[in-house]
């Protein structure tokens, strides 16, 4: 028998990007919260500037729960599963992957909320790709704007506004939706190379601007500004300048006295009572089983963890997994196409040894529906992102652009001259959900506890390939304008594999037949269960997910607090 713990109001499963944010408005509203985190606390001492450890061997994320349940993947149902990786890039720790993520903190574009209706209005319904299950979000950008603002100021985001209340500022992104005010901090500094790239973008008539980052460009909330030391990518911040939830919302929630953080709590199942209401969660610490009863459960792990936990939580009321009586858990899955970048070789050094991947120049001219697609054969687009990030082992592994072999004296001469002369752009592209892309439980592979891992069945479709080819062309044009002497395009990709930008599986929408959670992030089938994270998002847009995930988490938590008596008043 599990050890039954004292009742609480809300239990949050996972204190990462989403759960770490949601805890704050709940605790501030007087609600008692228990935050169960599979990982541990980490401190600045743990964040050594060590490429071998952080980037090659995958510490500290290699040692945690997520790493023991890496999903299997296959492109489609008739293909065998690909070999599983050994290091999952997502991390279990207080603060989760916000400890070592890039920190890019983008708002979505209004189009991303209304892909179906806007595409139909502008180009006709036939332009929605065949087989896509995309729906409009149940609300629009304006509804989320207030929460974007709360997160930008609550955790701290540096950036340059491009549209404050409809007033366009050419220093920022002219395509961004109106925001109520600018960012709380100016953008991160630029290097000479980034300045050069911005100049070249302008020469082409593009609209370059600094990207938004959850990294301090100056002292914020009594924490240090960024030191630009070059180990931000997959590394935690040694001066707490990266605004993970570990150093922002979680300590503030703890300071209310109403957030209890429980580390090394590996949640296995969610309990459901005889009335079909959620009763609490079971977790393991050092092999000992505990039951944490709660009036409301918020599932706030990564997309794979959220889907898996629901599918593993079977009960009389939910024989196919919690909140899955419509068979929607695991459906509408997709991930950003993180392949299909473009690399360039320049004739002189780019001086990129010290920097961070959130420090750079963006172009949104070809993102979302910011350009006319009438004569094109796809919808959506990509954000072009050129950034400053290089470390020695990674540099040694650079492409030789066909100019040298991979080893020997000729390679050594090449790398000596060119180690600091390449740049690889990241192009964040629209991906849509399709009826045959999904997550379920693997029939064979299990974690060390004996529970099945997720199986991802997903591939990029024609629309995604066309977006990739189109945006690669724009990126190549930009690099050439800046003087690149060689260009290499990465393959546009078929199988999705597993991803750090995984979406869907517990999609949010008004229709319970096609969505797991409602417009507030609460389950259609078990209303005292909420789901936080990108697993609720029905579209990806052309920008990184974290800020939207955090804005949605804040909104769900605030809704829960405002309607606490109704939602928490269980029938049992």
């Amino acid at each position, binding site marked *: 028998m599990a050890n039954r713990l004292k009742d609480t109001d809300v239990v949050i499963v996972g204190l990462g990007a989403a759960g770490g944010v949601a805890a704050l408005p709940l605790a501030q509203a007087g609600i008692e919260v228990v935050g169960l985190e599979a990982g*541990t606390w980490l401190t*600045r*001492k*743990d*964040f*050594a*500037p*060590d*490429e*071998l*450890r952080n980037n*090659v*061997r995958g*510490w*500290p994320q*290699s*040692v945690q729960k997520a790493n023991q349940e890496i999903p299997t993947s296959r492109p489609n149902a008739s293909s065998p599963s690909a070999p599983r990786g050994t290091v999952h890039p997502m991390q279990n720790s207080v603060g989760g992957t916000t400890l070592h993520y890039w920190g890019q903190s983008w708002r979505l574009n209004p189009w991303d909320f209304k892909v179906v209706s806007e595409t139909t209005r502008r180009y006709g319904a036939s332009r929605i790709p065949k087989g896509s299950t995309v729906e409009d979000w149940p609300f629009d950008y304006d509804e989320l704007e207030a929460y974007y603002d709360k997160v930008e100021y609550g955790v701290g985001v540096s950036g340059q506004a491009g549209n404050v209340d409809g007033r366009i500022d050419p220093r920022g992104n002219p395509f961004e939706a109106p925001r109520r005010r600018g960012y709380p901090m100016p953008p991160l*500094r630029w*290097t*000479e190379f980034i300045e050069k790239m911005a100049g070249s973008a302008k020469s082409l008539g593009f609209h370059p601007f600094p990207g938004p980052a959850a990294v301090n460009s100056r002292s914020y909330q009594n924490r240090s500004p960024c*030191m*630009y*030391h*070059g180990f931000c990518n997959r590394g935690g911040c*040694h*001066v707490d300048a990266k605004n993970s939830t570990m150093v922002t919302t979680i300590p503030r929630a703890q300071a209310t006295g109403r957030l209890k953080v429980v580390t090394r709590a590996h949640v296995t199942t969610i309990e459901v009572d005889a009335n079909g209401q959620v009763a609490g969660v079971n977790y393991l610490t050092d092999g000992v089983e505990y039951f944490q009863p709660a009036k409301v459960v918020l599932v706030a792990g990564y997309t794979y963890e959220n889907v898996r936990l629901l599918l593993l939580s079977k009960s009389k009321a939910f024989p196919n997994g919690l909140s899955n009586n419509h068979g929607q858990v695991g459906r509408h899955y997709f991930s950003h196409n993180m392949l299909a970048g473009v690399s360039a070789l320049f004739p002189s*050094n780019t*001086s990129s*040894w*010290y920097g961070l991947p959130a420090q750079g120049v963006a172009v949104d001219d070809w993102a979302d529906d910011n350009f006319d697609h009438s004569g094109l054969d796809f919808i959506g687009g990509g954000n072009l992102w050129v950034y400053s990030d290089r*470390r*020695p*082992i990674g*540099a*040694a*592994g650079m492409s030789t652009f066909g100019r040298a072999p*991979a*080893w*020997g*004296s000729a*390679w*050594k*001469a090449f*790398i*000596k001259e060119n*180690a*600091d002369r390449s740049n690889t752009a990241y192009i964040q592209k629209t991906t849509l959900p399709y009826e045959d892309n999904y997550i379920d439980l693997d029939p064979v592979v299990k974690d060390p506890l004996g529970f099945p891992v997720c199986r991802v069945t997903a591939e990029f479709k024609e629309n995604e390939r066309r977006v990739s080819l189109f945006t690669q062309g724009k990126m190549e044009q930009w690099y050439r304008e800046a003087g690149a002497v060689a260009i290499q395009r990465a393959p546009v990709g078929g199988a999705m594999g597993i991803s750090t930008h995984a979406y869907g599986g517990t999609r949010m929408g008004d229709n319970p037949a096609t969505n797991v959670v409602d417009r507030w992030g609460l389950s259609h089938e078990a209303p005292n269960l909420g789901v936080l994270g990108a697993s609720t998002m029905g579209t990806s847009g052309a920008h990184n997910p974290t800020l939207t995930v955090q804005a949605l988490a804040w909104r769900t938590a605030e809704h829960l607090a405002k309607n606490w008596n109704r939602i928490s008043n269980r029938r049992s």
Partner: protein
Amino acid sequence: MARAFQASGAPEALESLSAHEMEVLDAIVGRLIPTDANGPGAVEAGAARYIDRALAGALSPTREAYRSGLAALDRYAQSSRGKTFKELSPTDQDSVLIDVETGAATGFTGSSAAFFAMVLNHTHQGTFGDPYYGGNRDFAGWDLIGYPGVRTMVSPTDQRTLEAHQLKSNHKSAYDYGTFTKSSARLSADAGGDRQA
């Protein structure tokens, strides 16, 4: 090449490889990143020593691949070129390595190309990784590619100095800064983390 390796410091006990395996490996890394007009290479950097140490820790799952791969490479050198790998001229060593790289070499368990890719990858780690792990001796790898060393703070002036090609290497490892926990010490119990922690 092996003489240069030994000459640069007192002989150290091997942790994973046999003396013969180490000789073969050192000869291989010496061709992957040779000592030449562009300065020291993987031998001076101690890439083979890095691999030997790592095979007792983080790279231990590849220990068997090294044992069988190094033996297969030496056998292939003997059967195709008439000498052990170490005895061949640099030109013949390179031709053997090309066969291994392209998968043309026979006698390997699995693909010789996979063995080659693994060794090249680990040679990069041992030449360009933090010296804390036993490679990149005297910062030979970082000096080769112009990496100016681990810093915990890079001011706007430092960045401009770098852009002017004037930023000198500080020759510092991450763990020359006393503020950091060595490797994955705190989590190694459940990690299979780095043994050296």
